[in-house]
């Protein structure tokens, strides 16, 4: 056993540590957080001329499909003087590290923008691209630019300055197993939510899992979001998702949505012990042939199509009343520009490139909906069905934001927790909605 340190050395050690600590803390004025944010977050007059000198654009993204790398490669082909360096990070880690990434002196020129990144706006880490937008005419080229228009405090979406463009758009709908659905007597897409639920009941009676889902990481947010899209008025939905002052989700229509989801679980339509299954495992199980229906986004189309092949089918989430407009939940893969970028003109040129016909082919191939919908090459099979569904969503102007995306930076975690409590029988629909509202009010004080 080692002898205990003598009192002298211990005292010296403590004194040294103390002195060191004090010195470090006085030096902390340099470490004062946020001091590095730049003031140069807006541009002067801009032109659409692409710089001709040799430039390297660094692009940070979390897009695990072929879209972003495909777009970058196509852009490079058009501008050989611009090299591109891609920094890919997995979705969860991307969200958790983006604040530090964008605060660093070595911030990427372009970053994928997503929920939880609103703080970058008051931190002046994102370039206001409104001037470029005017020069390039983005308003006519990109649908849904309001999803990336934010107030100076970053808390409200849909008004304020433009911070990027939505390149590939995603949306949610219902996948189904054609062979099993045929046995249940499904001939065409159900016309109403009630009809869909009747199909669920039939599936259950046939001994099948009607709706394949996983909620270990909050995957029930997909059915919940589309149910909200169906029941809630677009006005209430947007006010809440976009963080308007005084907005609430404690509404009768939202309660109906929550009750519907809970009923599906309680009646045994949903994957049993859903809180113990992860969302990815649910997609994998469905693709392997388990269950009849699955509510998810177009990003899952490739995996489902690969697994089920000819038997993979898709239809849009039906409305509440027959003949009603199709409404669903979706978002885009947004690209924004760092305020620290020295290559803003080249970055803006890439953003504009994403709206073009050449980009549309790349975007469509990756399973996303291109801003220039007319330029998307038509595809067969499941991806073709999904694309057809998208045309209806566009015609009905039915794309609505995810409630966890813009409302607050913490809403993703909160929604996961609350959904687990709801379907685990630990929270009533009222308490569930109140839990979401509490998070909202803590942020929009």
């Amino acid at each position: 056993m080692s002898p205990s340190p003598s009192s002298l050395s211990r005292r010296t050690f403590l004194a040294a540590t103390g002195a060191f600590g004090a010195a470090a803390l006085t030096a902390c004025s340099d470490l004062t957080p946020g001091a590095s944010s730049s003031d140069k977050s807006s541009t002067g007059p801009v032109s659409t001329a692409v710089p001709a000198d040799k430039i390297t654009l660094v692009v940070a993204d979390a897009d695990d499909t072929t879209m972003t790398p495909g777009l970058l490669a196509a852009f490079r082909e058009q501008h050989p003087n611009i090299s591109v360096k891609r920094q890919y990070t997995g979705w969860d880690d991307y969200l958790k590290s983006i604040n530090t990434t964008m605060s660093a002196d070595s911030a990427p020129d372009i970053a994928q923008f997503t929920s939880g990144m609103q703080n970058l706006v008051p931190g002046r880490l994102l370039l206001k691209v409104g001037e470029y937008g005017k020069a390039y005419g983005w308003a006519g080229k990109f649908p849904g630019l309001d999803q990336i228009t934010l107030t100076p405090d970053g808390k409200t979406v849909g008004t304020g300055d433009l911070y990027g463009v939505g390149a590939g758009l995603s949306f949610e709908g219902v996948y189904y197993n054609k062979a099993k659905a045929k046995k249940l007597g499904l001939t065409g897409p159900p016309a109403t939510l009630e009809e869909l639920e009747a199909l669920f009941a039939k599936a259950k009676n046939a001994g099948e899992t009607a709706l394949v889902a996983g909620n270990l990481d909050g995957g029930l947010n997909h059915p919940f979001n589309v149910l909200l899209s169906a029941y809630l008025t677009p006005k209430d939905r947007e006010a809440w998702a976009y963080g308007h002052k005084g907005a609430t989700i404690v509404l009768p229509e939202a309660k109906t949505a929550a009750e519907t989801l809970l009923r599906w679980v309680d009646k045994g339509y949903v994957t049993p012990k859903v809180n113990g299954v992860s969302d990815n495992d649910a997609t994998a199980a469905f693709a392997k042939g388990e269950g009849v229906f699955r509510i998810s986004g177009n990003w899952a189309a490739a995996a489902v199509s690969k697994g089920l092949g000819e038997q993979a089918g898709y239809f849009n989430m039906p409305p509440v009343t027959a003949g009603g407009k199709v409404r669903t939940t979706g978002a885009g893969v947004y690209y924004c520009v760092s305020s620290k970028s020295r290559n803003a003109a080249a970055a803006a040129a890439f953003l504009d490139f994403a709206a073009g016909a050449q980009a549309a082919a790349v975007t469509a191939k990756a399973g996303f909906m291109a801003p220039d919908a007319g330029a998307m090459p038509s595809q067969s099979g499941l991806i073709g069905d999904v694309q057809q569904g998208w045309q209806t969503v566009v015609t009905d102007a039915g794309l609505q934001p995810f409630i966890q995306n813009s409302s607050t930076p913490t809403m993703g975690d909160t929604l996961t927790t609350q959904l687990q409590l709801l379907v685990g029988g630990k929270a009533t629909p009222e308490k569930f909605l109140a839990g979401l509202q509490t998070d909202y009010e803590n942020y929009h004080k």
Partner: protein
Amino acid sequence: MTTAHRRPADPARASAAPGPTKRGPDRAPSDGRRTARSGHRRRRAVASLYLLPALLPYTLFAVLPALHTAYLSLFDWDGVTLPSFVGLDNYRRIADDPQLRAAAWHAGALILFFSVLPICVGLVAAAIVSRRAGRRGTGLVRTVLFLPQVVPLVAVGILWRWVYAEDGILNQALRAVGLGGLADAWLGSFTWALPAVGLIGTWVVSGLCMVLFLSGTQRIDQEIYEAARMDGAGPVREFVSITVPLLRPEFAVALSITVIAALSSFDLIYITTGGGPGNSTVVPGILIYRLAFGGGGVGVASALAVVLTAVISVAVLVINRLSREAP
């Protein structure tokens, strides 16, 4: 019986006895004291020079960031914009937070799974393995038990997610023996998620405890065992009366390491449940992560980290104090 009980206790006392005599230099006669002191001091200065290469990176990458965290805990900061100084407000917020109290309870419960159970398992395993030393297969058993310690915790988490899944090995085993009624999606159950995650910890840490205790038993003089055996002590009596009391230093080390692992647990829980279902497996580490990187609450997260560090330090200090006292 009584002799068998008393005799092994004697060496334990004998081994504890040299303790005070080791502090000899402090009791040097007064006239020789000054020269002894200055020489002692010079030697210490030279010794600290040798420490520099280790101390420098440690200061740069552990001490300074820790101090910076303490500094940040005094601010309301979202991680991006200019912070505002709030003094001890973040600490007050922590004290008021019910979610945090739940997290503290869970961390406490994890001590049972990360410390108490592994130490018990490790002790029994060490006793069995040491008695079988040299025989065939013992090395293999030792390696297998230690293996979880070598696998990265993230991999361990993913592995056990499959084990605990609705159609995982555990449920398959239960169904195979006719206990299918007990099958559950363990990580999604409000009742079972915390014990399920805890048992993964037990599985990981037990091997480390066993190796610690094994090295401890090798330190114990074989003559003591022989004497006990001559007095008619069986394996159980040997274990209870010799092995356990003589392993006090190893106990302290094992307890320190495992209590730190329990209180600062993060990776296992993040991978397996993420704190769910609901908040039933939320621990301070998860909350710190959520607040700092997801919720823009860097100040509160830092305050929580400081409190957690303080709690762990106190726990380790108490463990070491208790272990040093004579029996």
